[in-house]
């Protein structure tokens, strides 16, 4: 076990080369991440990337093959730390012969909560997840979404310091998802660390401070969500009188340039031949009367004025220019496909 560094006191989760191998299959190859106290951390990856295995290692459901991890500064499995951890499993299957209140009292007992505290907290969490009216209903009468809510309630019952949520909104309708987002924001406001494993990237984008993308058991991108999303811009120009020289110059600015015609998005390669560029410029001008939409991927927003200038100096008619940051979904797809 690696000795914790001094500044790790502020870390809720820290892993060092965490690894899990099943026979010849590597589920998690080398997981090194750190999550600060009070952060909402998004853990993303395609199916089979190793997300759930990683969470299972944190939760003591699976033993790591190698590496180490600390939760609240203590090694995995520490009982004192477990008292401060809440977990909503991906497969939220519970003892459905219990009613909602009995279920929460049972889990409260497992957390070591006194009867008095349980009597106080059970109605509170039922209200938080919107199940107060179903307190005495048996879990086998619950819908998938309701089971996910009661699972969330058991994860929050003991007012944990870290909450691991494995696909917390997979069974919920849009209103339910918004509700869970609000709960996550409340947790963050109370300095609770949230480790969120989700396929719903739009959800992650709305609530997470930092994200890590895992593929084939390794982290391929990680960082502050804001930084990752601002790394790349998508610039859209509506230009009339597209010339081969303009196309060539624009292609040199960004990582990719595409021409959006009425039928398709045509990529323009920076190394395209003069003949090909001539052909593409004719295509642009033959179908667009108010300018053709050209989309450029940029890594540096400082280049936007230069691009506008290039459009004008190459006899282009600049009808419009707008830019936006790429979405998390685009970043995710790019990162994962780049690995393939």
């Amino acid at each position, binding site marked *: 076990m690696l000795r914790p560094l001094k500044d790790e006191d502020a870390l809720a989760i820290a892993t060092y080369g965490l690894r899990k191998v099943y026979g010849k299959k590597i589920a998690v190859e080398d997981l090194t991440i750190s999550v600060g106290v009070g952060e909402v951390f998004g853990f993303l990856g395609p199916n089979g990337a190793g997300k759930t295995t990683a969470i299972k290692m944190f939760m003591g459901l699976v033993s790591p093959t190698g590496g180490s991890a600390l939760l609240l500064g203590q090694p995995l499995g520490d009982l004192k730390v*477990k008292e401060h951890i809440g977990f909503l*499993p991906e497969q939220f299957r519970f003892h459905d012969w219990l009613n909602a209140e009995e279920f929460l009292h049972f889990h409260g007992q497992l957390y070591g909560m006194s009867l008095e505290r349980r009597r106080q907290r059970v109605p509170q969490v039922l209200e938080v997840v919107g199940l107060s009216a179903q307190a005495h209903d048996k879990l086998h009468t619950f819908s998938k979404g309701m089971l996910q809510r009661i699972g969330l309630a058991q994860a929050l019952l003991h007012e944990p310091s870290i909450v691991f949520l494995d696909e917390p909104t997979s069974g919920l309708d849009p209103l339910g998802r918004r509700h869970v987002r609000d709960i996550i924001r409340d947790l963050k406001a109370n300095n609770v660390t949230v480790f969120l494993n989700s396929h719903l990237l739009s959800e992650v984008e709305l609530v997470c401070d930092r994200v890590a993308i895992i593929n084939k058991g390794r982290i391929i991108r990680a960082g502050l969500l804001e930084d990752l999303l601002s790394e790349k811009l998508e610039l859209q120009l509506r230009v009339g009188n597209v010339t081969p020289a303009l196309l060539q110059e624009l292609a040199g600015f960004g990582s990719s340039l595409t021409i959006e015609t009425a039928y398709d998005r045509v990529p323009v390669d920076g190394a395209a031949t003069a003949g090909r560029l001539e052909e593409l410029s004719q295509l642009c001008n033959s179908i667009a009367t108010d300018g053709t939409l050209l989309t450029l991927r940029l890594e540096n927003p400082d280049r936007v004025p230069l691009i506008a200038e290039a459009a004008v100096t190459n006899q282009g008619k600049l009808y419009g220019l707008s830019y936006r940051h790429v979405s998390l979904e685009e970043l995710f797809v790019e990162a994962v496909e780049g690995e393939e």
Partner: protein
Amino acid sequence: MKAQVIARFTFREAARKKVLFGAIALTVAFVSLFGVGAYFAFRDLARQAPTMQEIAASQILLAGLYVTNFISGLLAIFTSVGTISGEVAEGTLDAIVPKPLRRWEIVAGKWVGYAAMLVVYVFVTSWLVIGLVYLFGDYLPPRPWESVMVMAFQALVLLSLSLLGSTFLSTVTNGIAVLMFYAIALVGGMVEQIGSLLNNGTMENIGIISSLIIPSDTLWKMASHWLQPKLPSLTAEMIGPFTSLNPPSVWMLVYAAFYMLFAVGASMLIFRRRDL
């Protein structure tokens, strides 16, 4: 201690299982039929000599408790057969294992919960049978408490074996495996008894080996021995087919205790290392 929470929960869970309802329904039917049978049997036996009455009463009692013992064995197997593997497959343990408790506490809690249910079942049913024989036949075996305790012990041994299998086998595979072990014990016990009657050493050895593989039948033989009448000279005909003239060594009790402890300990060890 969190094991207590699991134990109470398991007892509640076991008490609502369909297999228990089935066993209770069958037990009620069995005890009712046994009571009616005992009533008429003892009415006819009233004209017999006291010694004959005592022998007949002990045989009726042995038959009743043999069935009780058999049902409790099946109950021990079928209620606990999927206690770990079933919950792993369903995913219900995913929300329990991360709680602040050791994995061995889950195993211990489950064992205690099922054990409590089985002990209640064995004591209630056995004393109903003993009570009916006493009521209609005025017969009380020499050491009823010890017999019932050993019968309960037999159920606990089977429970421990079933729990052990449940930590690494699927529910169906475990059910088949433990049931086969139980059958081996029953058949092995019969082979040993026949071997004893025929004075055949090989058959007796087969019985001994089977009782080492699984000591459930040996425990029944011990329990049933304490149910036999205290007569100066007993023969195989007098005691009937449900018991044996020669009781197993008391060391078999010690062996069975170690067997049970080993099974529970191994369950804890295997489950501690198992990836869920």
